[in-house]
Protein backbone atom coordinates (compact mmCIF):
# COMPACT_ATOMS: atom_id res chain seq x y z
CA UNK A 1 0.00 0.00 0.00
CA UNK A 2 2.87 2.33 0.84
CA UNK A 3 4.37 1.51 -2.50
CA UNK A 4 1.06 2.27 -4.24
CA UNK A 5 0.80 5.63 -2.48
CA UNK A 6 4.37 6.44 -3.34
CA UNK A 7 3.76 5.85 -7.06
CA UNK A 8 0.46 7.72 -7.03
CA UNK A 9 2.00 10.74 -5.31
CA UNK A 10 5.00 10.63 -7.64
CA UNK A 11 2.67 10.38 -10.63
CA UNK A 12 0.55 13.27 -9.42
CA UNK A 13 3.59 15.50 -8.84
CA UNK A 14 5.01 14.62 -12.25
CA UNK A 15 1.62 15.25 -13.81
CA UNK A 16 1.37 18.71 -12.29
CA UNK A 17 4.89 19.50 -13.45
CA UNK A 18 4.07 18.36 -16.97
CA UNK A 19 0.83 20.31 -17.04
CA UNK A 20 2.58 23.45 -15.97
CA UNK A 21 5.34 22.96 -18.54
CA UNK A 22 3.05 22.29 -21.48
CA UNK A 23 0.10 24.61 -20.99
CA UNK A 24 0.63 27.73 -23.05
CA UNK A 25 -1.92 30.05 -21.50
CA UNK A 26 -0.55 29.80 -18.00
CA UNK A 27 2.98 30.43 -19.08
CA UNK A 28 3.09 34.13 -19.67
CA UNK A 29 5.50 34.39 -16.84
CA UNK A 30 3.55 37.13 -15.10
CA UNK A 31 2.49 37.12 -11.46
CA UNK A 32 0.05 39.42 -9.69
CA UNK A 33 2.59 41.99 -8.61
CA UNK A 34 3.62 42.46 -12.25
CA UNK A 35 7.06 40.89 -11.89
CA UNK A 36 8.18 38.39 -14.48
CA UNK A 37 8.87 34.95 -13.10
CA UNK A 38 10.20 32.62 -15.73
CA UNK A 39 11.11 29.04 -15.07
CA UNK A 40 14.82 28.76 -15.98
CA UNK A 41 14.08 25.41 -17.59
CA UNK A 42 11.82 27.13 -20.10
CA UNK A 43 14.66 29.44 -21.07
CA UNK A 44 17.06 26.59 -21.73
CA UNK A 45 17.65 26.57 -25.49
CA UNK A 46 18.64 22.92 -25.35
CA UNK A 47 15.36 21.83 -23.81
CA UNK A 48 13.85 18.92 -25.70
CA UNK A 49 10.39 20.42 -26.08
CA UNK A 50 11.55 23.16 -28.45
CA UNK A 51 9.47 22.20 -31.40
CA UNK A 52 6.77 23.67 -33.56
CA UNK A 53 3.24 22.42 -33.00
CA UNK A 54 3.09 21.81 -36.69
CA UNK A 55 6.66 20.70 -37.33
CA UNK A 56 6.87 23.04 -40.27
CA UNK A 57 4.77 25.84 -41.62
CA UNK A 58 3.81 26.18 -45.26
CA UNK A 59 1.76 28.65 -47.23
CA UNK A 60 0.14 28.28 -50.63
CA UNK A 61 -1.51 31.34 -52.18
CA UNK A 62 -5.29 31.13 -52.36
CA UNK A 63 -6.79 30.07 -55.70
CA UNK A 64 -9.34 32.83 -55.14
CA UNK A 65 -6.58 35.39 -55.69
CA UNK A 66 -5.91 34.10 -59.20
CA UNK A 67 -9.65 33.93 -59.88
CA UNK A 68 -9.89 37.57 -58.79
CA UNK A 69 -7.19 38.54 -61.26
CA UNK A 70 -9.02 36.68 -64.02
CA UNK A 71 -12.29 38.38 -63.06
CA UNK A 72 -10.65 41.80 -63.11
CA UNK A 73 -9.41 41.08 -66.65
CA UNK A 74 -13.04 41.09 -67.85
CA UNK A 75 -12.71 37.62 -69.30
CA UNK A 76 -16.03 35.87 -69.86
CA UNK A 77 -17.15 33.09 -67.55
CA UNK A 78 -16.15 29.71 -69.00
CA UNK A 79 -18.00 26.81 -67.42
CA UNK A 80 -16.08 24.30 -69.51
CA UNK A 81 -13.04 24.99 -67.32
CA UNK A 82 -14.72 23.51 -64.24
CA UNK A 83 -14.53 19.93 -63.06
CA UNK A 84 -17.96 18.37 -63.53
CA UNK A 85 -19.78 17.58 -60.28
CA UNK A 86 -20.71 14.22 -61.78
CA UNK A 87 -17.08 13.12 -61.53
CA UNK A 88 -17.35 13.01 -57.77
CA UNK A 89 -18.36 9.35 -57.73
CA UNK A 90 -14.96 8.50 -59.27
CA UNK A 91 -13.01 9.67 -56.24
CA UNK A 92 -12.43 6.75 -53.90
CA UNK A 93 -9.14 7.28 -52.08
CA UNK A 94 -8.47 9.96 -49.47
CA UNK A 95 -5.77 11.36 -51.75
CA UNK A 96 -8.17 11.67 -54.66
CA UNK A 97 -10.90 13.13 -52.46
CA UNK A 98 -8.56 15.70 -50.90
CA UNK A 99 -7.12 16.83 -54.22
CA UNK A 100 -10.57 17.15 -55.76
CA UNK A 101 -11.96 18.96 -52.73
CA UNK A 102 -9.32 21.61 -53.45
CA UNK A 103 -10.29 21.62 -57.13
CA UNK A 104 -14.02 21.93 -56.42
CA UNK A 105 -13.29 24.64 -53.86
CA UNK A 106 -11.45 26.68 -56.51
CA UNK A 107 -14.30 26.03 -58.99
CA UNK A 108 -16.75 27.24 -56.37
CA UNK A 109 -14.72 30.40 -55.88
CA UNK A 110 -14.56 31.00 -59.65
CA UNK A 111 -18.33 30.47 -60.09
CA UNK A 112 -19.03 32.77 -57.12
CA UNK A 113 -16.87 35.55 -58.56
CA UNK A 114 -18.87 35.40 -61.78
CA UNK A 115 -22.21 35.46 -59.91
CA UNK A 116 -23.06 31.98 -61.14
CA UNK A 117 -25.07 31.26 -58.03
CA UNK A 118 -26.92 28.19 -59.26
CA UNK A 119 -23.61 26.66 -60.31
CA UNK A 120 -21.97 27.69 -57.06
CA UNK A 121 -24.70 26.01 -55.04
CA UNK A 122 -24.30 22.80 -57.03
CA UNK A 123 -20.55 22.89 -56.27
CA UNK A 124 -21.38 23.38 -52.61
CA UNK A 125 -22.96 19.92 -52.71
CA UNK A 126 -19.75 18.45 -54.16
CA UNK A 127 -17.62 20.21 -51.53
CA UNK A 128 -19.96 19.10 -48.76
CA UNK A 129 -19.92 15.51 -49.95
CA UNK A 130 -16.12 15.27 -50.13
CA UNK A 131 -15.62 17.09 -46.83
CA UNK A 132 -18.04 14.64 -45.20
CA UNK A 133 -16.02 11.75 -46.59
CA UNK A 134 -12.82 13.31 -45.28
CA UNK A 135 -14.27 13.90 -41.82
CA UNK A 136 -14.23 17.70 -41.99
CA UNK A 137 -17.97 18.10 -42.30
CA UNK A 138 -17.88 20.63 -39.45
CA UNK A 139 -16.32 23.17 -41.78
CA UNK A 140 -19.14 22.87 -44.31
CA UNK A 141 -22.01 22.27 -41.93
CA UNK A 142 -25.64 23.36 -42.03
CA UNK A 143 -24.71 26.76 -40.64
CA UNK A 144 -22.24 27.30 -43.50
CA UNK A 145 -24.82 26.25 -46.12
CA UNK A 146 -27.46 28.48 -44.56
CA UNK A 147 -25.15 31.50 -44.49
CA UNK A 148 -23.88 30.88 -48.03
CA UNK A 149 -27.41 30.60 -49.43
CA UNK A 150 -28.70 33.55 -47.41
CA UNK A 151 -25.98 35.74 -48.90
CA UNK A 152 -26.40 34.57 -52.47
CA UNK A 153 -26.91 38.16 -53.62
CA UNK A 154 -23.75 39.38 -51.90
CA UNK A 155 -20.61 38.17 -53.61
CA UNK A 156 -18.25 39.59 -50.97
CA UNK A 157 -20.06 37.77 -48.17
CA UNK A 158 -20.16 34.53 -50.16
CA UNK A 159 -16.39 34.64 -50.69
CA UNK A 160 -15.74 35.42 -47.05
CA UNK A 161 -18.01 32.57 -45.90
CA UNK A 162 -16.46 30.13 -48.38
CA UNK A 163 -12.85 30.91 -47.51
CA UNK A 164 -13.63 30.89 -43.78
CA UNK A 165 -15.01 27.37 -44.18
CA UNK A 166 -11.81 26.22 -45.92
CA UNK A 167 -9.78 27.88 -43.16
CA UNK A 168 -11.84 26.05 -40.54
CA UNK A 169 -11.24 22.75 -42.36
CA UNK A 170 -7.51 23.51 -42.58
CA UNK A 171 -7.27 24.15 -38.83
CA UNK A 172 -9.25 21.01 -38.03
CA UNK A 173 -6.97 18.86 -40.22
CA UNK A 174 -3.82 20.36 -38.71
CA UNK A 175 -5.04 19.95 -35.14
CA UNK A 176 -6.03 16.36 -35.79
CA UNK A 177 -2.62 15.65 -37.33
CA UNK A 178 -3.98 15.06 -40.82
CA UNK A 179 -1.69 17.56 -42.43
CA UNK A 180 -1.34 15.54 -45.62
CA UNK A 181 -5.04 15.97 -46.36
CA UNK A 182 -4.62 19.69 -45.76
CA UNK A 183 -1.61 19.73 -48.13
CA UNK A 184 -3.50 17.84 -50.84
CA UNK A 185 -6.50 20.17 -50.63
CA UNK A 186 -4.17 23.16 -51.06
CA UNK A 187 -2.45 21.38 -53.96
CA UNK A 188 -5.77 20.74 -55.72
CA UNK A 189 -6.83 24.36 -55.28
CA UNK A 190 -3.51 25.64 -56.56
CA UNK A 191 -3.56 23.33 -59.59
CA UNK A 192 -7.08 24.42 -60.50
CA UNK A 193 -6.07 28.07 -60.32
CA UNK A 194 -3.17 27.25 -62.68
CA UNK A 195 -5.65 25.49 -64.97
CA UNK A 196 -7.80 28.65 -65.06
CA UNK A 197 -4.85 30.95 -65.58
CA UNK A 198 -3.12 28.97 -68.34
CA UNK A 199 -6.32 28.37 -70.30
CA UNK A 200 -7.55 31.91 -70.00
CA UNK A 201 -4.14 33.30 -70.93
CA UNK A 202 -4.24 31.17 -74.08
CA UNK A 203 -7.49 32.91 -75.02
CA UNK A 204 -6.75 36.43 -73.87
CA UNK A 205 -2.97 36.85 -73.96
CA UNK A 206 -3.45 39.09 -70.94
CA UNK A 207 0.02 40.02 -69.69
CA UNK A 208 -1.05 40.16 -66.04
CA UNK A 209 -2.20 36.54 -66.21
CA UNK A 210 1.03 35.58 -67.98
CA UNK A 211 3.00 37.12 -65.12
CA UNK A 212 0.82 35.46 -62.51
CA UNK A 213 1.57 32.07 -64.09
CA UNK A 214 5.34 32.63 -63.94
CA UNK A 215 5.11 33.99 -60.40
CA UNK A 216 3.85 30.61 -59.19
CA UNK A 217 7.40 29.24 -59.17
CA UNK A 218 7.83 29.54 -55.41
CA UNK A 219 4.31 28.28 -54.72
CA UNK A 220 5.06 25.06 -56.58
CA UNK A 221 8.32 24.62 -54.67
CA UNK A 222 6.38 25.00 -51.42
CA UNK A 223 3.77 22.48 -52.54
CA UNK A 224 6.48 19.94 -53.37
CA UNK A 225 8.05 20.55 -49.98
CA UNK A 226 4.77 19.95 -48.13
CA UNK A 227 3.91 16.84 -50.11
CA UNK A 228 7.38 15.39 -49.43
CA UNK A 229 7.13 16.25 -45.74
CA UNK A 230 3.89 14.33 -45.29
CA UNK A 231 4.52 11.55 -47.80
CA UNK A 232 3.93 8.69 -45.39
CA UNK A 233 4.09 5.24 -47.01
CA UNK A 234 4.49 6.84 -50.42
CA UNK A 235 0.90 8.10 -50.62
CA UNK A 236 2.10 11.21 -52.44
CA UNK A 237 4.58 9.51 -54.77
CA UNK A 238 2.36 9.80 -57.83
CA UNK A 239 1.43 13.45 -57.43
CA UNK A 240 5.01 14.26 -56.47
CA UNK A 241 6.27 12.72 -59.71
CA UNK A 242 3.70 14.65 -61.74
CA UNK A 243 4.39 17.97 -60.05
CA UNK A 244 8.12 17.29 -60.20
CA UNK A 245 7.87 17.37 -64.00
CA UNK A 246 6.07 20.69 -63.78
CA UNK A 247 8.72 22.01 -61.42
CA UNK A 248 11.44 21.17 -63.95
CA UNK A 249 9.72 23.51 -66.38
CA UNK A 250 9.40 26.22 -63.74
CA UNK A 251 13.10 26.07 -62.98
CA UNK A 252 13.76 27.97 -66.19
CA UNK A 253 11.46 30.83 -65.12
CA UNK A 254 13.72 33.67 -64.03
CA UNK A 255 12.54 35.80 -61.13
CA UNK A 256 14.51 38.63 -59.59
CA UNK A 257 13.74 41.13 -56.88
CA UNK A 258 15.28 44.42 -55.92
CA UNK A 259 14.90 45.78 -52.42
CA UNK A 260 13.24 49.16 -52.12
CA UNK A 261 12.66 50.71 -48.71
CA UNK A 262 9.03 50.10 -47.69
CA UNK A 263 6.85 53.01 -46.62
CA UNK A 264 4.79 52.76 -43.45
CA UNK A 265 1.81 54.82 -42.40
CA UNK A 266 1.57 54.20 -38.68
CA UNK A 267 -1.83 55.86 -38.32
CA UNK A 268 -3.37 53.51 -40.89
CA UNK A 269 -1.39 50.47 -39.74
CA UNK A 270 -0.33 50.13 -43.37
CA UNK A 271 3.01 49.33 -44.98
CA UNK A 272 3.53 49.63 -48.71
CA UNK A 273 6.00 47.05 -49.99
CA UNK A 274 7.78 48.67 -52.91
CA UNK A 275 10.31 46.01 -53.95
CA UNK A 276 10.76 45.84 -57.70
CA UNK A 277 10.48 42.49 -59.41
CA UNK A 278 11.00 40.97 -62.83
CA UNK A 279 9.79 37.67 -64.19
CA UNK A 280 11.14 36.24 -67.42
CA UNK A 281 9.36 33.33 -69.08
CA UNK A 282 9.21 32.53 -72.77
CA UNK A 283 5.90 32.02 -74.57
CA UNK A 284 7.04 28.48 -75.43
CA UNK A 285 7.69 27.72 -71.78
CA UNK A 286 4.24 29.00 -70.82
CA UNK A 287 2.76 26.63 -73.43
CA UNK A 288 4.71 23.73 -71.98
CA UNK A 289 3.51 24.66 -68.48
CA UNK A 290 -0.07 24.83 -69.73
CA UNK A 291 0.21 21.37 -71.32
CA UNK A 292 1.76 19.89 -68.17
CA UNK A 293 -0.90 21.43 -65.91
CA UNK A 294 -3.60 20.01 -68.19
CA UNK A 295 -2.00 16.57 -68.05
CA UNK A 296 -1.74 16.53 -64.25
CA UNK A 297 -5.23 17.93 -63.72
CA UNK A 298 -6.74 15.39 -66.13
CA UNK A 299 -5.15 12.57 -64.16
CA UNK A 300 -6.58 13.94 -60.92
CA UNK A 301 -10.13 14.74 -62.04
CA UNK A 302 -10.31 11.69 -64.28
CA UNK A 303 -10.74 13.33 -67.66
CA UNK A 304 -8.94 12.93 -70.95
CA UNK A 305 -6.75 15.82 -72.07
CA UNK A 306 -8.12 17.65 -75.08
CA UNK A 307 -5.99 18.89 -77.91
Amino acid at each position, binding site marked *: MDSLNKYLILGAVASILLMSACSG*ETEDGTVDNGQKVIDPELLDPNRSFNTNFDGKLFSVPSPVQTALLIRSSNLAYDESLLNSETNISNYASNTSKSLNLGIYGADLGYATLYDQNAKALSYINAVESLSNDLGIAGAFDANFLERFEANSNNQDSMLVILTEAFRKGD*LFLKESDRKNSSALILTGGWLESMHFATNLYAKSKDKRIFHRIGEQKQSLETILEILKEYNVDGVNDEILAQLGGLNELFQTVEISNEFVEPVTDESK*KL*TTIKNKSTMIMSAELEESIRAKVAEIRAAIVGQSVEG
Partner: protein
Amino acid sequence: MKKIFIASILSVFFGAFQVTAQDCDSIARVVETYITNDAKGKPFVSDGQVYVAFLDNEKAEFNTTLFGGSYYRLAASAGVKDDYVIFSIFDAEDNLLFTNRNHKNSPYWDFKIENTVPVRIQTELDRDKKVTGCAVLMIGFLK
Protein backbone atom coordinates in the same frame (compact mmCIF):
# COMPACT_ATOMS: atom_id res chain seq x y z
CA MET B 1 2.64 -0.04 -9.68
CA LYS B 2 5.08 1.26 -12.20
CA LYS B 3 2.33 0.89 -14.79
CA ILE B 4 0.07 3.22 -12.80
CA PHE B 5 2.85 5.78 -12.65
CA ILE B 6 3.60 5.52 -16.37
CA ALA B 7 -0.10 5.59 -17.24
CA SER B 8 -0.64 8.75 -15.20
CA ILE B 9 2.36 10.39 -16.86
CA LEU B 10 1.20 9.38 -20.35
CA SER B 11 -2.40 10.42 -19.78
CA VAL B 12 -1.37 13.86 -18.61
CA PHE B 13 1.24 14.14 -21.37
CA PHE B 14 -1.35 13.48 -24.06
CA GLY B 15 -3.87 15.54 -22.10
CA ALA B 16 -1.45 18.42 -22.23
CA PHE B 17 -1.29 18.18 -26.01
CA GLN B 18 -5.07 18.20 -26.07
CA VAL B 19 -5.04 21.36 -24.00
CA THR B 20 -2.56 22.79 -26.48
CA ALA B 21 -4.84 21.99 -29.42
CA GLN B 22 -7.75 23.61 -27.57
CA ASP B 23 -5.59 26.64 -26.83
CA CYS B 24 -4.70 26.90 -30.51
CA ASP B 25 -8.36 26.64 -31.43
CA SER B 26 -9.40 29.42 -29.08
CA ILE B 27 -6.47 31.59 -30.19
CA ALA B 28 -7.48 31.02 -33.82
CA ARG B 29 -10.89 32.46 -32.92
CA VAL B 30 -9.15 35.55 -31.57
CA VAL B 31 -7.14 35.98 -34.77
CA GLU B 32 -10.28 35.57 -36.89
CA THR B 33 -11.64 38.73 -35.30
CA TYR B 34 -8.76 40.70 -36.83
CA ILE B 35 -9.30 39.41 -40.38
CA THR B 36 -12.48 41.39 -40.85
CA ASN B 37 -12.81 44.68 -42.76
CA ASP B 38 -10.35 47.32 -43.86
CA ALA B 39 -10.71 50.98 -42.86
CA LYS B 40 -13.22 51.53 -45.66
CA GLY B 41 -15.35 48.57 -44.59
CA LYS B 42 -14.28 46.20 -47.36
CA PRO B 43 -14.04 42.61 -46.12
CA PHE B 44 -10.80 40.64 -46.12
CA VAL B 45 -11.01 37.24 -47.76
CA SER B 46 -9.09 34.49 -45.95
CA ASP B 47 -6.37 32.61 -47.80
CA GLY B 48 -8.04 29.49 -46.37
CA GLN B 49 -5.12 28.52 -44.14
CA VAL B 50 -4.24 28.73 -40.46
CA TYR B 51 -0.56 28.97 -39.55
CA VAL B 52 -0.15 27.30 -36.17
CA ALA B 53 3.03 26.82 -34.19
CA PHE B 54 3.78 25.84 -30.63
CA LEU B 55 6.59 28.23 -29.77
CA ASP B 56 9.07 28.74 -27.02
CA ASN B 57 12.65 29.51 -27.96
CA GLU B 58 12.17 28.84 -31.62
CA LYS B 59 10.85 31.00 -34.40
CA ALA B 60 8.36 29.57 -36.87
CA GLU B 61 8.54 30.72 -40.44
CA PHE B 62 7.21 30.02 -43.88
CA ASN B 63 7.70 31.23 -47.43
CA THR B 64 4.92 32.68 -49.48
CA THR B 65 4.34 35.03 -52.38
CA LEU B 66 2.61 38.37 -51.98
CA PHE B 67 1.16 39.32 -55.34
CA GLY B 68 1.55 42.75 -56.91
CA GLY B 69 -1.54 44.94 -56.85
CA SER B 70 -2.90 43.12 -53.80
CA TYR B 71 -3.77 44.40 -50.35
CA TYR B 72 -3.19 41.98 -47.48
CA ARG B 73 -3.78 41.83 -43.77
CA LEU B 74 -1.63 39.70 -41.47
CA ALA B 75 -2.90 38.99 -37.98
CA ALA B 76 -1.40 36.97 -35.15
CA SER B 77 -2.06 36.10 -31.54
CA ALA B 78 -0.76 33.83 -28.80
CA GLY B 79 -3.29 34.39 -26.09
CA VAL B 80 -5.63 36.76 -24.41
CA LYS B 81 -3.38 39.79 -24.76
CA ASP B 82 -2.86 41.41 -28.13
CA ASP B 83 0.89 41.83 -28.08
CA TYR B 84 2.46 38.43 -27.42
CA VAL B 85 3.50 37.68 -31.01
CA ILE B 86 6.17 39.37 -33.08
CA PHE B 87 5.80 38.81 -36.81
CA SER B 88 8.31 39.94 -39.38
CA ILE B 89 8.47 39.85 -43.16
CA PHE B 90 11.71 39.44 -45.11
CA ASP B 91 12.31 39.44 -48.86
CA ALA B 92 14.29 36.75 -50.69
CA GLU B 93 17.58 38.52 -49.85
CA ASP B 94 16.67 38.67 -46.15
CA ASN B 95 15.97 42.38 -46.20
CA LEU B 96 13.51 43.22 -43.44
CA LEU B 97 10.35 44.59 -45.00
CA PHE B 98 8.30 44.85 -41.82
CA THR B 99 8.17 43.84 -38.20
CA ASN B 100 5.36 44.60 -35.79
CA ARG B 101 8.05 44.79 -33.10
CA ASN B 102 8.46 48.40 -34.27
CA HIS B 103 4.75 49.01 -33.75
CA LYS B 104 4.17 47.80 -30.18
CA ASN B 105 3.64 44.23 -31.41
CA SER B 106 0.40 45.26 -33.10
CA PRO B 107 -1.70 42.09 -33.57
CA TYR B 108 -2.50 42.96 -37.17
CA TRP B 109 -1.08 45.07 -39.97
CA ASP B 110 -2.05 45.82 -43.57
CA PHE B 111 0.22 45.61 -46.59
CA LYS B 112 -0.12 47.16 -50.00
CA ILE B 113 2.03 45.25 -52.49
CA GLU B 114 3.21 47.22 -55.50
CA ASN B 115 5.01 44.35 -57.25
CA THR B 116 4.94 40.61 -56.64
CA VAL B 117 7.45 39.67 -53.98
CA PRO B 118 8.44 36.25 -52.60
CA VAL B 119 8.72 36.63 -48.83
CA ARG B 120 9.56 34.78 -45.66
CA ILE B 121 7.17 35.39 -42.78
CA GLN B 122 8.58 34.74 -39.34
CA THR B 123 6.72 34.54 -36.05
CA GLU B 124 8.07 34.41 -32.53
CA LEU B 125 6.87 35.11 -29.03
CA ASP B 126 7.88 38.32 -27.33
CA ARG B 127 9.76 36.60 -24.54
CA ASP B 128 9.38 39.58 -22.25
CA LYS B 129 5.68 38.84 -22.25
CA LYS B 130 5.20 35.14 -22.90
CA VAL B 131 7.76 32.38 -22.99
CA THR B 132 5.87 29.45 -24.43
CA GLY B 133 2.56 28.68 -26.08
CA CYS B 134 0.57 28.33 -29.21
CA ALA B 135 0.88 31.10 -31.80
CA VAL B 136 -1.58 31.48 -34.65
CA LEU B 137 -1.19 33.65 -37.74
CA MET B 138 -3.69 34.24 -40.53
CA ILE B 139 -3.59 36.04 -43.86
CA GLY B 140 -6.43 37.83 -45.58
CA PHE B 141 -6.59 39.83 -48.79
CA LEU B 142 -8.99 42.35 -50.25
CA LYS B 143 -11.10 41.41 -53.23
